[in-house]
């Protein structure tokens, strides 16, 4: 049987959905599932991890791990791997996962497959589909046999099970000697705008130069509210300083995969299309019927966004409140 170790991430509300996706995948695949959680709240998550399929939970509860510290986390994940001896280590392609996994992979003389969008387990070997060029193409990635397989999966790619394989997990504490930190995170600067990262968002409303003025971004924020959506932007408006870089979608911004993507006043340049091509349904609103964005859209409205957006916001408010 294949052994999978999952590096789980939580926020104040509990386990992140992206971590649950990994847990459900691993348990549905029939693997022996262990989970590593970090920080002084880690132990509170053990029961929930069990309900979602964890057979073993390693709690690294040291307070040094309450904030992400790359060197301390690397030592912790390494220790968990030494203890569990997994075939596969799974994590989310989050800001933390992407920083941590490569460092540990180098230490253990292996590599990382990052940004996975599909994963299959055959025996002990995984086969992972991953995007290249921000989604302009895809490839199947596989590890050479005998290498520890470290994989980072993108959020919202794997289904959650309606009834997870609930277990009563064996909980053990993972003690890791303190690490001398040469890179030390001193403080956090909280985000001001979006609450959710674009890469995790289920609905995105993105705006481009067609909005004409930075203050018109409020039209998008109004639309985002009833939809519980995250606001994105094209590079043109990020470069103009109307939106922050963390909001940029595209080849030199975020690669996103929501179920619904609105492109408002965005022409559809190849670099923008690359970043949003993983979206399930795309709505384009543009007053130029020949804008390339319409070639990648599911639904198109040819019209003036300044007329359409307020009406659309009202319609969503009405319809979504009715349930």
């Amino acid at each position, binding site marked *: 049987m294949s052994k999978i170790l999952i590096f789980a991430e939580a926020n104040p509300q509990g386990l992140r959905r992206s971590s649950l996706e990994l847990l459900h995948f691993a348990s549905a695949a029939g693997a022996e599932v262990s989970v590593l959680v970090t920080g002084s709240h880690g132990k509170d998550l053990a029961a929930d991890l069990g309900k979602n399929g964890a057979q073993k939970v390693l709690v690294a509860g040291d307070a040094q791990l309450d904030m992400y510290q790359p060197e301390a986390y690397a030592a912790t994940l390494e220790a968990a791997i030494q203890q569990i001896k997994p075939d596969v280590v799974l994590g989310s392609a989050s800001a933390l996962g992407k920083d941590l996994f490569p*460092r540990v992979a180098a230490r253990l003389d292996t590599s990382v497959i990052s940004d996975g969008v599909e994963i299959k387990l055959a025996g002990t070997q995984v086969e992972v589909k991953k995007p290249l060029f921000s989604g302009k193409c895809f490839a199947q990635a*596989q590890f050479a046999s005998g290498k520890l397989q470290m994989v980072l999966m993108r959020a919202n790619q794997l289904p959650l099970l309606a009834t997870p394989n609930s277990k009563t997990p064996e909980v053990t504490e993972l003690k890791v000697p303190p690490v001398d930190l040469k*890179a030390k995170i001193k403080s956090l600067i909280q985000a001001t705008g979006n609450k959710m990262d674009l*890469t995790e968002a289920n609905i995105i409303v993105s705006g481009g130069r067609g909005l004409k003025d930075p203050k018109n971004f409020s039209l998008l924020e109004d639309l985002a509210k009833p939809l519980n959506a995250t606001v994105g932007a094209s590079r043109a408006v990020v470069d103009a300083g109307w939106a922050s870089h963390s909001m940029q979608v595209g080849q030199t911004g975020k690669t996103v995969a929501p179920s619904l993507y609105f492109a408002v006043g965005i022409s559809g340049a190849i670099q923008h299309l690359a970043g949003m091509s993983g979206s399930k*349904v795309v709505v384009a609103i543009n007053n130029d019927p020949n804008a390339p964005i319409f070639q990648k859209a599911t*639904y198109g409205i040819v019209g003036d966004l300044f007329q359409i957006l307020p009406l659309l916001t009202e319609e969503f408010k009405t319809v979504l409140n009715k349930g």
Partner: protein
Amino acid sequence: MSVFVCIKQVPDTETKIKLNAGSSGIETNGIKWVMNPYDEFAVEEAIKFRDTHPGTQIIAITVGPKARAGEVLRTALAMGADEGVLVDAPENLDPAQTAKILAAAIAQEGAAELILCGKMAIDDQANSVPQMLAENLKLPHTSVISKFSESGGVAEVERDTEAGAKEVVAVTLPAVFAANKGLNTPRYASLPGIMKAKKKVLKELSAATLCPDLTAAVTLSKYSLPAEKPAAQIIPGDPAAQVKALVQKLRDEAKVL
């Protein structure tokens, strides 16, 4: 004092990706190769560092096929790098291989005070080489930085995490940093810079000599293109009718609400 800047040559972002005959990779014929956009921020930051630390040597280094990869070093030299090191290597290395080769080359070339990379190469989008390189050299790292300053051998940087949040990190040098957009505004190469860069001699190393027993931990195969989307349904009518029809379709047809 040496500052290394790791630069990858990648297809221009305008490139329409096509697959090769056996779908074992992309068709590279006719591709225009450029400097990975994030690496431009790394070069710029190295130049800014040299401005405040006179005597610093900026060494641009790339791992790639000799037949084409030297060009990207000329771009870095034209921007202001002092030296270029071309490590000849085959196409499509896995990030762990690249990081081993870079570590061996940097160790051989001399003590680095600072190593700057981009946060991601836009072709393989691995987001891995800088962290792996740091580990191989037993140095600390910070990835995805959008602010850098240094004083007394300690760097203070800001790392972009999620949804616009940042971490403030103090890092003892020498260290590896991976640049995000926002770190600075990369300069254009000046005409005299371009002329001078043309004349410089690149140092050539070979991956096979630096790392003789290199094997890939990860291989990519069965390349595919995203499924073609059917043509968009253009929704007719006046704005009020368009909006009503769109919402109804999103709910009942696409079922995404």
